[in-house]
């Protein structure tokens, strides 16, 4: 049996609000094993993205614990969590969040540069990833010169730049039309097939259908 990359144990996340505290995630337990492909679906506001942020070490739980590669995330410093996000987690956002002033290649190179990879290795890895997502010929294009689907493929290449153990994706097809969304789904299949664990949250049932394990979230609670 594969060891879990990340494990949530009875995780609760409460946001203090002016109108009273809101429990976005309520006692959730979850594990994503190495090489596993897990999709979480559910209605808007059910806490999917909050859970994704907790698992991706962007946020810490109000109670319960997140173990990333057996390390309790809540006990790590912000600097250590940042290092995990940089080297062990790849993030794919609904709105891509590519840096608009950098080319596709430079966007992919940025996390590698932050991780201290040598320039020659960065160039080779960037070329390899842009070929992988089918955008080698667009390497010098700015995000504003790319379509939505192309931007998301660059974002996936960026997320894979430092060879993460876990790829987390928050509504990765949310801004794309159906056909483009299908291409992105196929790309996730290839990433999964190449051995990277994936955890994605989506409204898109067709995308979720690609996952090897599908979970449903309702009102902050996770069901099978």
């Amino acid at each position, binding site marked *: 049996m594969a060891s879990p990359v990340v494990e949530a144990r009875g995780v609760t996340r409460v946001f203090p609000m002016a109108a009273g505290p809101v429990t976005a995630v309520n006692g959730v337990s979850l594990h994503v094993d190495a090489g596993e492909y897990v999709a979480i679906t559910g209605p808007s506001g059910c806490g999917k*993205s909050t859970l994704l942020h907790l698992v*991706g070490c962007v946020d810490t739980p109000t109670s319960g614990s997140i173990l990333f590669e057996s390390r309790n995330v809540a006990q790590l410093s912000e600097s250590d969590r*940042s290092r995990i996000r940089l080297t062990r987690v790849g993030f794919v956002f609904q709105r891509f*969040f590519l840096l608009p*002033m950098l080319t596709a290649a430079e966007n992919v190179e940025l*996390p590698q540069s932050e991780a201290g990879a040598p320039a020659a290795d960065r160039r080779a890895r960037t070329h390899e990833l842009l070929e992988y997502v089918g955008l080698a010929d667009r390497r010098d294009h700015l995000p504003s010169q790319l379509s939505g689907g192309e931007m998301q493929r660059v974002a996936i290449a*960026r997320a894979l730049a430092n060879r993460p153990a876990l790829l987390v994706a928050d509504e990765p097809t949310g801004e794309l039309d159906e056909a483009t969304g299908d291409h992105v789904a196929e790309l996730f299949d290839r990433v999964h097939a190449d051995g990277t664990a994936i955890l994605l949250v989506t409204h898109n049932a067709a995308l979720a259908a690609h996952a090897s394990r599908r979970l449903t979230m309702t009102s902050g609670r996770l069901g099978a």
Partner: protein
Amino acid sequence: MTPFQLAWRTTKRYRLRAMLAIAGVTVIGALLFDMLLLSDGLLTSFADLLTAEGFEIRVVMHEGLSRVPIPGAPAIAASIAAFAEVDDVAQIRMEPGSACVAGKQPARVTIVGRTQSRPGPWRLLSGDNVPARAPDGGCPIVIGKPLANALDLRPGSPVTLTARPAAATVIPPLPCRVSGVVDFGFNAVNELTAAMPMNAFERLMGEDHPGDAELILVALRPGADVPTVQHEISTLRSDLRVYSTEDVVAQFNRNAFAYFRQISAVLSFLTTTFAFLLIATLLTVSVNHRLGEIAALRALGIARRRIAAMLLWESALLVGVGAVLALPVGGVLAIGLDHILRQMPGLPERLHFFVFETRALVIHFVVFLVTATAAAAYPIWLSATLPIAPTLRREVVG
């Protein structure tokens, strides 16, 4: 991709914002630079004028270089000249008079008499200087350019001088000849002045014995210690006021120039505050505009210090380029303002309000370095403390 490269790309991408910021900093920087030039410019210029005269010590009767005759001035001058450290002593007298040439209206002039062995206190422009003593019956004079222009005089031209306005005196006019045209450092723009050896001056005044000078100028030998000689001169007579060039500058600084320094200090502070507010506002707006981008960068594991360094470089680029462009703009502005201010009546022609000094340049850049850092502080704090997850969520929901 270094933080500087990221900042440079950001600046290029938001070109219009960057150009507006740089234009704002340039204008503010030009004003700041001018205030810095003004704060010490007049004093520096005044000190330069005094130094250019070539005399390190000035002796007068009363405080403030007032024009009161020094009783027994020739004897005091002789005593001073006897000091080993003293190279030359000049006694200066000044009286109003008039200058006439055939076919021209008489001109009211200031007539200067001086004793000394070396040229000055003026700068020769053309012709020859006057000798230490005028030959018997002769009256060689040097004149300023305004008088040369007014009466169409040049070296060799004859001119008749009369002590005090002609209608009010019975002293006969003295025929003189122009030896040279000079630049009297302390003359106002249109002031008409003629200078001559003291023996010719006494003849012009109808005096049959040496008069009392109002000012004694003392030039020291190289290496002489000014305070020591000052002290020695002071011991000659207790009623003398003995000033070094530094004393005169300090006195004028206290009495006349403190006003400019205070104004320039206040305006410098205001302009720096404007620069700070402008850059802080622009960077804060820019960071607020890019909160999602910054939150995503942090979610990707980009360190806070790298984002902070990027913002600091952005601030430095906007402020740095503006501060550099401010120098030529400020320089041109200073020339224009200097020209306007120098039109004030009675000011020495060679006195400037705005004088370039390396000190002003250094302060200019230090102030802007501090401003750039301070202006980036809040946006950096904003980006470093923003909660990643809620910000990403807000961006998507928004």
